[in-house]
């Protein structure tokens, strides 16, 4: 009794017929059925015969476009340097040295966060 070829051997046999397996596969309904599936899968995945209406694709692209998140722009470094230079002296004037330093630090931390991940600023 001939053993069934394993799955790799059957796949190879479907691509390049191997005389070693030909007699067995021809007489074995299980192996023939498996070979039939192996041979048909590439044709099954071929979608060349399907025509998708162009209007449908365009309408889809319009829907996707309307949902597309606009490209997030990172705030410029100059903006935050300017903000820090303004916030520092302002805090100093209003509340003294500690408040000036605190204001400066807050702006610098906000700048770092915004530069690393702008979504925090935009999306909250």
């Amino acid at each position, binding site marked *: 009794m001939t053993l069934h070829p394993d799955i790799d051997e059957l796949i190879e046999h479907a691509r390049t017929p191997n005389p070693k397996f030909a007699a067995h596969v021809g007489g074995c309904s299980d192996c023939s059925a498996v070979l039939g599936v192996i041979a048909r899968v590439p044709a099954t995945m071929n979608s060349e015969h399907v025509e998708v209406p162009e209007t449908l694709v365009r309408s889809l692209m319009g829907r996707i476009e309307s*949902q597309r998140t606009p490209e997030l722009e990172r705030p410029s470094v100059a903006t935050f340097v300017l903000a820090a230079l303004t916030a520092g002296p302002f805090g100093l004037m209003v509340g003294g040295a500690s408040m000036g330093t605190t204001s400066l630090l807050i702006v610098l931390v906000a700048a770092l966060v915004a530069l690393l991940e702008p979504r925090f600023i935009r999306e909250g």
Partner: protein
Amino acid sequence: MIDPIKLRGNDRSYFDQVVRDFSPLIYRVAGRYASDHASRDDLFQEIWMHVWERRASFKGTGPFAAWLMRVGRNVCISHIRSDANRLRREQFMATEPASTSPDALVTLTDREQLDALFDAMLDLPPRELEAVLLRLDESVSTQQAAERMHVKPATVRSLVRNAVHRLAVDLRKEE
């Protein structure tokens, strides 16, 4: 091959190209579950919107087509369940062929068999479908498929063997 990082990004031209390349496949999936032409078009758009929203979940370990088919099938099943139009679908399937244009290269019987196989493939477990498409459609070796799927070669063999046997049984039922 689809680059998951580019897919995840906001590159309009890249996603548009993906839509162009894979729309026939999605259209076929939608056609297998639709009750009429309008419903097929709705499903087609619904599937793509899901793909757009969930594109970050494609990790690139298996074929993109397998991931698309799974997303498409899930969207369609959820649609059928919620829409309660199973009866209309059955009536439609009984009266109209699923494909949109005749294929000059294959006979109707061949086309029907391929459609039946496509239906059966939609019902395969995700890992089996990935393994089958890698080995049989993309023609990569067992070793390469194992590396892509992060499993052992023996696992790939087992997944392909189980899937192919399942498909063969389903095809016999169709005959």
